[in-house]
């Protein structure tokens, strides 16, 4: 019973944001704002030219997990960084 409850919570947790994602898909996330606000909650912003585009792909994947960024936010920041270089 306990395991069932845990599984049910897990499914709800994983499913709810997906449904929410559909509703928010038209909302545009501005990469420069996320870059300016979210990154600086923990550390200084590095120079976009510090890494190559391929390296930024990897680093943003890492920061998406570590910094609790949504997929949309991570993609927007990545696009902003590559444009800013």
């Amino acid at each position, binding site marked *: 019973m306990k395991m069932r409850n845990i599984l049910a919570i897990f499914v709800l947790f994983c499913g709810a*944001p997906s449904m929410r994602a559909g509703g928010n898909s038209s909302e545009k996330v501005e990469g420069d704002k996320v870059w300016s606000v979210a990154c600086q909650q923990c*550390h200084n912003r*590095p120079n976009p030219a510090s890494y190559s585009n*391929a*390296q930024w792909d990897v680093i943003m994947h890492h920061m998406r997990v570590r910094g609790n960024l949504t997929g949309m936010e991570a993609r927007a920041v990545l696009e902003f960084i590559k444009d800013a270089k």
Partner: protein
Amino acid sequence: MFTINNRRCAASALIGTSLLLTSSMVMASPSDGPISRAEFEKMQREMSSLREELAALKKADALQKTPPSDSKVSQGGPARVKSSGADTRLETPAISALKTEIKAVREMVEETKAGETKFVLTGGASSVFSAPSHGTSKFDAAFSPILLWHINDRLLFEGEVEYELNDDGTNSTKTNLEYAQLSYLLNDYVTIGAGKFLSPMNIFVERYEPKWINKLPDTPLAIYDGILPESHVGAQVRGIIPLGSARVNIAAYVSNAPSTDSNGSLEFDNFKPAASNGKAVGGRVGFMPCQYLEIGYGLQQSNVRLDGDPSATDYNSLLQSVDLSTSFEKANGRFALQSQYAWSHVGSKADFGVNANRSGGYAQVSYRGKKWSMDFLNHLEGIIRVDRMTQPDPTAIDAFNEKRVTFGLDYWLTARTVLKTAYELDRQNNGHAGSNSILLGVATGF
């Protein structure tokens, strides 16, 4: 310009003219008198030789006009002539050198081009000099490379190994596996991971512990290397629930349970199966009413056992933590507030002879200049931190309560390289002399 091609054409014309002249001479010779058979045969041999030479030249010319079989740039050998209608060009040494250089660049790009997976080596390094008022001053150094392996757009491996100097008199180096986790992005909001990972319930280790991020040369009492775990071996799921302009960050995990010592103090090196057969369950909920503010609550519950106890008695343990952090720009700079308070409960007074309840935490305020006209000020950051650690019964377990206030001044050389200076006031009880310290450090992230 008289090119090689022109020369060959001229040679062909010359040979043709020679043949014509020779033929006409042969044809005209009867009018000058009869020729001997030997002379006639000699002339025939010469004509035959000239015809062969002419055929060879024509063949060579035809080959020269044939376009190359592919578009690749040919390398090496003598310079080649290319002909395209009236545009006849000679491949100069400069063009040959350029083609050689292009080939080298192509080869270099091919060698460095990532395949389907991508690696990045990042991390940090630091060095600290500490001079306590009671004790020996010393230098220390650490190096923490992080390997990020982007397997595909959903899969990521991240691992960090920290190399530190042992302070146990062995003059050796200590190696710690900080984390080694494989994570999978389930969708835009949810990530699952397994391996050894930084504790999701302890926001300090997840976000502020890296030496080039931590603004002071040392770490806060109780929160780091204290009563909260720094990492777990297990599995976790974490996600984000957007609520308009607000959001909720959630993380939950199951891991090997910690063990305990005879004072009810938890040992979080929880990868020793003999010491703990149980599992710990925990997580954190962080609420962000806006992008600049996060308030969090973390907990971990588990049954723990005495390290190496053959009776294998289980004691209940509960760890809890609250945190608040914010960062915003004001007054030509950026203010940041980080705070966290944690408390633990392990077993009962009957189990350990004391109520094994510990608590402690820190609050830190910092300001860094950003928009001052004097650029030097934009590299400075001032920090004040207050932290404390309270033991259950210091006299009974030969421990002490501790309070500190630390004043720091940093100079940022780059966005990720910082020189740190700090003066730390330290107060301890139970007969332990607090030791004020001067701390100097340098840290870089790469």
